[in-house]
């Protein structure tokens, strides 16, 4: 039981929860003064979280190369695309 819950999954869950609260503070609390920087930080943090969910919760980290590549490319593409759209706006 202990080994089941004291796992890598739990560590990742804790990390993601802390990062979520952190990015919330950046967006709403005292955080960053520069809105554009704050926006980019929030987007990049979101995509890093998404990557963890894909790799570890969806278990793509050890999947065959095609599946892992598809996941990574989607994450990177969306991160670049959303940040670009945000910045030119």
């Amino acid at each position: 039981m202990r080994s089941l819950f004291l796992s890598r999954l739990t560590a990742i869950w804790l990390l993601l929860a802390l990062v979520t609260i952190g990015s919330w503070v950046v967006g709403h609390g005292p955080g960053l003064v520069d809105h554009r920087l704050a926006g980019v930080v929030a987007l990049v943090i979101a995509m890093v979280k998404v990557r963890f969910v894909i790799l570890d919760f969806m278990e793509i980290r050890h999947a065959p190369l095609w599946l892992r590549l598809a996941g990574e490319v989607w994450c990177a593409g969306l991160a670049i695309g959303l940040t670009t759209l945000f910045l030119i706006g």
Partner: protein
Amino acid sequence: MSGAVRPDTTRAGFAGHVPGEAGIWLFIAGDMVLFSVLFAVFLTHRAEAPDLFGAGRAALDPRLGLVNTLLMLTSSWFVATGVAAARRRRPRIPAACFAAALACGAGFAGVKYLEYSAKFTAGLTPMTDDFFMFYFVYTGIHMIHVVIGMGVLYGLIAYLRGRDIAVVNLQHLETGASFWHLVDLLWIVLFALLYLVA
């Protein structure tokens, strides 16, 4: 291929293993395409009216968004842990984990209900402006996914009931779990776009 007999592993998955049925990845990829388009459309419209989107974002309750994100993450963790437990043939724990995830999903729906009703009371509807159109439509489409996902989780619990873990087809569990993680990750991006960035 049968997922019933697998080496015991504490790690998430192992080399060369496609989690769940291959077909679910087609569904997940397709949904990611749809949401990528939705995200891009949102940012394009935001670029045309940054002030309106800024004001819209300010009218949202960020605490509810935060609570919902934590609920989604936690439910995803429960689901992943449930699959790991099933892989180690732990009786009862998988079903309990999925039930806990289901409860998180219900909590998410409850928070959304509070949020929607507060907006309607304040006179904010999808017709108010572009920001609230996107807010209601996107969170609504996501909510449909949450409801389908809760049905899937319930299906997994029913599937585990009365079956020994040794004969449970782990592939079915992975297929359902992958869908729930999709619901989680789409919300992570929506949360950033609607509550933090706009």
